[in-house]
């Protein structure tokens, strides 16, 4: 847990404070994203937490202890710190990079090596391949993974991340973000995350702190930031398409309709028709014996056909699908991509989770918006 109380920072030989009387609290296991234009004091705020910068006024508590009273070395060793990929030590191997803090803490060597391998696995890098490489041999995305692994090395309860995904291309960034979120689901770290990208903030944050010129403009959940921006500055920051952005906040798996007709491929058309009548869905989903979707049969096609045929014969292979972790935004874009009015949601084991249709999506947004 991180708590800031009336924190002000004035840099030497400057009149305007970089951070002005800031108070906020990050609850345990939450990701708090500091967002705002460059120079708004978000990085300064973050660096005051691990005492890279000392506040001029105010108090900062980490896990209930005033950081000013903790030895900065000890403090920092218990706070993971991730910055852009440039922060890796270029002369050390990946393993040595990750082992930095455990070494500082004096862990035994075998435990360190074990930990390095675990962490490399965790961030999706094969230890056998990458352990002894130098950062220069890695791609930007891989380096960023190592950066995260290094910050997690001593299993600190708190993470500070300063634009950690800033230096990679958009596709890799989205990938890293998703991976990190699923990692966080397991780790439940308390995270302070700095970015200037509002989309990233909305995607990553449990809470978003919008800052301007050293002051906290709004500190709220992403949904509230989008639906009830505090002032024009926040409106401008989130952009005019904030309604669309809200789709980002909802996971497909959470809202997918599960009470939909599902049938095996061996099901006869007559039976299928019966299933369909109960609903106004455009398709019927065909699954295999393990409840994994195989394809769909369109309603019109089904109604047109007669006779003793099985569903299999009118099955169209599955295209418009989404992972349960995908946001509604992703689901919508999949629909648009394939020109369909539905998307089938599956979990990680490729099992059927439900279905989201276009009409249903509109309804959902209407409900949430009010």
């Amino acid at each position, binding site marked *: 847990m991180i708590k800031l109380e009336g924190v002000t920072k004035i840099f030497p030989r400057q009149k305007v404070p970089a951070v002005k009387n800031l108070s906020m609290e990050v609850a345990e296991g939450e990701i708090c994203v500091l967002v705002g234009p460059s120079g708004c004091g978000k990085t300064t705020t973050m*660096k005051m937490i*691990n005492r*890279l910068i000392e506040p001029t006024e105010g108090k900062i508590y980490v896990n209930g202890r005033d950081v000013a009273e903790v030895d*900065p*070395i*000890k*403090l*920092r*060793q*218990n*706070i993971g*710190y991730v*910055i*852009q990929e*440039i*922060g*890796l*030590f*270029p*002369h050390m191997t990946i393993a040595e990079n990750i082992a*930095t*803090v455990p070494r*500082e803490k004096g862990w035994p060597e075998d435990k360190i090596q074990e930990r390095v391998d675990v962490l490399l696995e965790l961030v999706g890098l094969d230890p056998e391949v990458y352990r002894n490489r130098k950062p220069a041999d890695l791609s930007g995305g891989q380096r960023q993974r190592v950066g995260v692994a*290094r*910050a997690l090395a001593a299993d600190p309860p708190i993470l*500070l991340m300063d634009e950690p995904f800033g230096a990679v291309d958009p596709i890799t960034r989205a990938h890293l973000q998703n991976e990190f979120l699923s990692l966080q689901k397991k780790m439940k770290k308390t995270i302070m995350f700095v970015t200037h990208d509002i989309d990233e903030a909305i995607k990553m944050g449990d809470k978003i702190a919008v800052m301007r010129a050293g002051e906290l403009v709004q500190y709220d959940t992403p949904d509230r930031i989008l639906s009830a921006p505090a002032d024009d500055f926040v409106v401008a920051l989130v952009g005019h398409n904030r309604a669309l952005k809200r789709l980002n906040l909802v996971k497909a798996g959470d809202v997918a309709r599960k009470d939909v007709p599902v049938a095996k491929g061996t099901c006869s058309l007559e039976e299928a028709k019966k299933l369909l009548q109960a609903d106004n869905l455009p398709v019927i989903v065909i699954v295999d014996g393990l409840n994994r979707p195989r394809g769909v049969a369109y309603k019109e096609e089904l109604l047109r056909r007669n006779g003793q045929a099985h569903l299999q014969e009118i099955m169209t292979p599955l295209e418009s699908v989404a992972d349960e972790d995908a946001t509604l935004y992703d689901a919508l874009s999949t629909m648009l991509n394939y020109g369909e009015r539905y998307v089938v949601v599956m979990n990680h084991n490729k099992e059927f989770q439900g279905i989201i249709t276009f009409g249903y999506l509109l309804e959902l947004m209407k409900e949430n918006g009010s």
Partner: protein
Amino acid sequence: MFVTCGGAAAVYFVENPGSAMAARVLTYNHLAVLTAQHVGMVVISSLLAATTALPLGILISRPRLRLLGTILENIVNIGQTIPSIAVIALSFTVLGLGFNTALFALWLYSLLPILRNTYAGIMSVPPGVREAAVGMGMRPWRILFKVELPLAFPIIMAGIRTAVVVNVGTATLATFIGAGGFGHLIVTGIMVRRLQLLLSGCILSALLAMLCDHLLGMVEEKVKASI
């Protein structure tokens, strides 16, 4: 290879002095003494310079002494424009004749490039890397030895190599103040117009410079592999 070349050159010149005057200077004994003097001057002064300039360079690169660092950097830059012969001459007029004076002058003159490169090397460590180290809670000493020095190492080593090669050349001037060395052969050769003397001095000092450079290059590779 260098040693072989040097030895071959020395033997050739001793066996074929070309003139009575050159023969008087070119004896194995005398060459051994001159070599010992030259190598002694270079090695001792370089070692001293490295051991003083490195800590000093590290010291002035500390953030708290940044101002001192900038000032010293400028002094060093100006100091490097003073010709080597002037440094020898100045220390000579102040400290008097002999080996120790030469040692002092050589030490002073090789101090500058090493100091400058140590400072520049440490300053060239990317700020992001240093910040990451601090942010992870590494202790200042560990940051210095595990991050800053290894990263600055190639630049520091370049400074040492420059210093030593220049040092070998400057040491030839020490003969003016009675400290011996290969300069003795060169100056005598110029004075009495004996090419054999001149050449032996030139070749031996040039080979020594190359040898030093080569050895330091090997050291650099070794150390680089170990960090």
